[in-house]
């Protein structure tokens, strides 16, 4: 295949001209299915992610029906849900737990990890650093197909007679280990574990590739200090994933042993279903430590790419450099490091040593500082800008809002004394749905709207984008903001109904409101689905650089082939945020424009670099001349 030769990013590779001829030999299978082109793999991740987002969203509307309208007769759903609707037309409580579990698993792993990182790391890393493809196209292909298999297995588990896993997305043992305790812990849980093993493999294959590519395949002049913030974010996300996913694998493996081979890593002193089990000496808290060692970094795996995308989109559409590039990179690094040492804040009341709780409280609240810096920098980037509200820009501003709202409630939950009351209530649900769920989802949407022209060579319809944004933005707040009140009132999570307790026997109106808002918000996503697929074929033809952006991907042809640039890869001479530079004629100067061509806008220290730059360019020219002589 042509890919082998073009994978070298080295600008002096001979004969790029012929490599384009090879493109046409791709058949359907090598072009759309088992492709090694990072752009196509990105689209595969995106479309699969969208599919899962719809499934995950649909599951949430089902359990919101139960929570908002507990007396509703759901007989109409019997054709789909079968026996999970009981004779009285009510949702089965066990199935309710399965819905909650699957919603969480699907959204966290399949949509916001694979759908977000998988799509944009794959699509943007080679295009923005100036590489022909990922370091290993084959591993990249495997990464997608492992994810696909993982999805197929999880999908099958939805249709089991005993139901899919139902112990919450965290699948804490002993509940997840004992079939006697909940039917979903039988075959459903087995499939969950197998699916996750494939997913972890996929994630690692992808992550290793992203890291390698960013370190090794940057084009000439693309130093780390000139990387777009998107790439910084994807790079650090991949690092987090590589370090944390293996720990989830360990946790899952021990759980498999406990479930199938009679070990007692997590099980001790259990009497269930009229029988005392032989297991002694294990600790369920051990599982929680292992799980959250992945689980917390996972939050940042989900969030960092969204923040990276937002940085890029906000700078471009504010026509301003991102404020405090260095501070943004340092805060990303800070979040990366800190994300590994805060996991036990999920476990303040798990029975672990309270002293450990104190330590983790200190570490957790430190992470608020880099997050705050990011917010202030976004705000300052907007300040005195010349803002163009593309749909991507709207979603980015929405992300910042969610990041603030959900981030601030983290300060409550990170404080172990306050967490005693709020732990596992709807306050937590509101917190993480805003800061990680919705913020990351908005980052993903911003990315799709912004890079759609590069993906498909056409524009998405902006008006539909606006409608989609406003419905979703208002909708998300209408769903999750009321949950703070419900949470402060003490409503516990994962409850099938509220009528058993006096302290939760109120707010039926608010729960109904939330459910209606959730269903409307879910329905609004079909506007996006329509816009996406319609524009793919019928959208207005995009120009080469529709947003007047600085980064390298906009220097490729409208439909870049495998290898991205038909000729040489452009060299990079400046950082990616030269927007509205004083003295420049246009309000943007792309990264590949040499400083020597823009004497009118160079800052004093850049003017000094011009001489050096000219020398290097001369050397280059000599080299190329020599090459062609041979």
């Amino acid at each position: 295949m042509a890919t082998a030769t073009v994978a070298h990013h080295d600008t002096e590779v001979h004969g790029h001209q012929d490599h384009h001829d090879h493109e046409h030999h791709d058949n359907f299978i090598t072009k759309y299915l088992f492709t090694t082109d990072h752009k196509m793999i990105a689209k595969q991740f995106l479309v699969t992610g969208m599919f899962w987002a719809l499934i995950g969203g649909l599951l949430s509307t089902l359990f919101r029906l139960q929570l908002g309208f507990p007396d509703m007769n759901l007989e109409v759903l019997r054709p789909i849900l079968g026996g999970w609707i009981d004779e009285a037309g009510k949702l089965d409580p066990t199935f309710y737990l399965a819905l909650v579990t699957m919603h969480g698993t699907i959204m966290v792993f399949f949509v916001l990890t694979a759908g977000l990182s998988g799509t944009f790391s794959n699509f943007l890393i080679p295009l923005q650093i100036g590489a022909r493809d990922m370091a290993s196209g084959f591993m990249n292909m495997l990464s997608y197909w492992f994810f696909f298999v993982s999805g197929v297995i999880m999908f099958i588990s939805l249709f089991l007679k005993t139901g899919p896993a139902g112990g919450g997305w965290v699948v804490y043992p002993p509940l997840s280990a004992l079939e006697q305790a909940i039917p979903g812990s039988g075959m459903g849980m087995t499939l969950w574990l197998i699916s996750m093993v494939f997913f972890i493999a996929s994630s690692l294959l992808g992550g290793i590739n992203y890291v390698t590519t960013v370190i090794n395949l940057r084009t000439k002049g693309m130093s780390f200090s000139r990387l777009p913030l998107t790439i910084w974010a994807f790079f650090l996300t991949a690092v987090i994933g590589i370090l944390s996913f293996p720990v989830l694998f360990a946790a899952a493996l021990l759980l498999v042993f406990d479930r199938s081979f009679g070990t007692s890593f997590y099980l001790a002193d259990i009497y269930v279903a009229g029988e005392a089990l032989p297991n002694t000496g294990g600790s369920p808290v051990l599982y929680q430590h292992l799980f959250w060692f992945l689980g917390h970094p996972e939050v940042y795996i989900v969030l960092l790419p969204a923040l990276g995308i937002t940085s890029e989109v906000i700078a471009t559409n504010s026509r301003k450099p991102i404020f405090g590039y260095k501070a943004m990179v340092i805060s990303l690094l800070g979040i990366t490091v800190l994300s590994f040492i805060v996991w036990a804040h999920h476990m303040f009341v798990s029975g672990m040593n309270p002293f450990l709780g104190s330590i983790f409280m200190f570490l957790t609240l430190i992470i608020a500082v880099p997050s705050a810096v990011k917010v202030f920098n976004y705000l300052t980037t907007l300040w005195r800008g010349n803002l163009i509200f593309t749909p991507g820009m709207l979603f980015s501003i929405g992300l910042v809002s969610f990041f603030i709202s959900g981030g601030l409630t983290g300060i409550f939950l990170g404080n172990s004394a306050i967490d005693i009351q709020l732990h596992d209530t709807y306050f937590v649900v509101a917190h993480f749905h805003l800061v990680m769920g919705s913020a990351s989802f908005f980052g993903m949407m911003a990315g799709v709207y912004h890079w759609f022209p590069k993906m498909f060579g056409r524009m998405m319809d902006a008006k539909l984008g606006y409608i989609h944004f406003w419905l979703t933005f208002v909708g998300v707040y209408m769903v999750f903001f009321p949950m703070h009140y419900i949470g402060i009132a003490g409503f516990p999570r994962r409850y099938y109904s509220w009528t058993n307790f006096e302290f939760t026997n109120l707010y039926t109106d608010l729960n109904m409101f939330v459910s209606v808002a959730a269903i409307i918000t879910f329905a609004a996503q079909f506007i996006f689905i329509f816009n996406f697929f319609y524009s793919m074929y019928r959208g207005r033809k995009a120009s080469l650089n529709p947003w007047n952006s600085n980064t390298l991907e906009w220097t490729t042809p409208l439909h870049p082939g495998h290898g991205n640039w038909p000729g040489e890869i452009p060299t990079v001479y400046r950082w990616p945020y030269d927007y509205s530079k004083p003295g420049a004629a246009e309000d943007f100067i792309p990264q590949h424009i040499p400083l020597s061509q823009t004497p009118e806008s160079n800052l004093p220290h850049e003017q000094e670099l011009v001489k050096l730059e000219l020398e290097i360019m001369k050397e280059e020219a000599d080299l190329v001349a020599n090459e062609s002589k041979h």
Partner: protein
Amino acid sequence: MYTFLIAVGALLLLSLVWMVYRIQTLVSVVKGSDRKIASGSNKVNAILFLVFLFGSGALMFWYSIKEFDNYQMPVASEHGVITDELFWITMAVTGIVFLITHVLLFIFPYKYQYKEGRKAAFYPDNHKLELIWTAVPGVVMAGLVISGWMAWSDITAPAPEKAHVVEIMGYQFAWDVRYPGKDNVLGDYDYRLINASNSHGIDFTDKNSIDDFPSPRVVIPKGEPVLFKIRARDVLHSVFAPHMRLKMDAVPGMPTRFWFVPTKTTAEMRAELKNPEFEYEIACTEICGRGHFSMKKIIEVVEPAEYQKWLSEQKSFLQQNPSLAEGLKTEKKEIAGIN
């Protein structure tokens, strides 16, 4: 029939949306607005941010004030007063940040919306400003953490010697309560001893277990320290007594604990809330299976004198069910008062 009508309605609605969409696309092509950098929609979006700011802000203040008594749960424990105070201090601090950042976030889009011919400010960094807004959150966080840490240390400190011990055991899907009796020491247990008549797995050969007694409710005295000894029999559960601001997981194989001082009797709380039916409740907050939402136990807080009276009236496990004592030596049966 209904399904048919709904389907027709949906179809009509969809075609209407479709037509509107096509018309607006054509209009924008004719007007050439799709070629402009920023079309008229830019202004609309800018205004909508303002509308959202004021609309949702007003809604938030209105609802937060109107519903205050509903979501602010009355507190009935000593440490709960402290954690509530911390909660509201944090609310004030974060509330201010929330308002300021959101006002800026939504006013900037209006104020700095695209204008042809204007150039954005080239303002890539300002170290002084960045240092300030790194240091200020740092200091504020430090304050919050230290106050939280002090409260946490007090709450999780070992219980006072004289604390009244109550054992709460979670199982699918209820709580069982055991009192240590006169000696205030709970007897040993072993999960392998659990059977239909000994749901706690109490080891009755341990002399401390002889005066242990069960109770359908958690009865505790007001104003005196109470120690919950918490365990689980099958899967994880979590004891949540919302009015006591108390939560602790129940873990199979690893007993946990939480001590507190209740400050209001059930009767006093009933009077305060003008609700004669009020009860303190315990709920489960760790997903545990089908009946997770129904694991209820009532806590009854009474005056200390009443508590002592109630204690003296209770019958031990062995008195209630002498068959449990089978195989025990006679002397022990005598101590237990069942011969």
